[in-house]
């Protein structure tokens, strides 16, 4: 069964450093998302991406965050200058139709630890 692949599974970074979280969505999917889950808290929507541009972003997704689809397969989330509060599990997801008939497929997540 097709999977969404995220790398790395765990990343530790120093405060103020830039990090790039990588995702390979399912190949025929067109809509891509990032969510995050701070330990012990709810899963939160960050951003949706379609047709090479952001279609919606949450208040969390400030100027420190950016997303990119640099080629036909990867979808990345960049945090320019990490803060302690960015420590969380980050999930990438994709879907294949602009429809509510299909659930998302989530990756297994990247645990980001900012020290």
């Amino acid at each position, binding site marked *: 069964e097709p999977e969404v692949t995220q790398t790395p599974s765990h990343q530790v970074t120093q405060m103020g450093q830039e990090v790039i979280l990588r995702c390979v969505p399912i190949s025929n999917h067109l*809509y891509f*998302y990032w*969510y995050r889950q701070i330990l012990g808290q*709810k*899963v*939160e*929507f960050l951003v*949706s991406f*379609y047709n090479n541009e952001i*279609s*919606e972003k949450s208040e969390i997704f400030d100027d420190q965050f950016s997303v990119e689809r640099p080629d036909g397969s990867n979808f990345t989330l960049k945090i320019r200058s990490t803060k302690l509060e960015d420590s969380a599990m980050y*999930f990438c*997801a994709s*879907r294949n139709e*602009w*429809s*509510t*008939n*299909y*659930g*998302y*497929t*989530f*990756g*297994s*997540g990247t645990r980001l630890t900012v020290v």
Partner: protein
Amino acid sequence: AQSVTQLDSHVSVSEGTPVLLRCNYSSSYSPSLFWYVQHPNKGLQLLLKYTSAATLVKGINGFEAEFKKSETSFHLTKPSAHMSDAAEYFCVPSGGSNYKLTFGKGTLLTVNP
């Protein structure tokens, strides 16, 4: 706007007994609803989805859910719990212009031997 309420933050059952995880929705129109499961330190897995095609929806691992418009409910059930079912379960509506998912706090299911 769509929202859901998972009535129990924690449900504990014995292995082999039925599971009932409750979810009520609030929507001004017929929603799309999903149940996701998250095992410890794992990602989010789709269990099943309701998209108005059928009110009784069967999912993976023996789970099913019934959409009841009169009760605005979409409860998740399983006839017989297995130890591997221990996880956090999320009832999630999809909506808005980008069909983003809005997660609540979930229900933690523990299964006792």
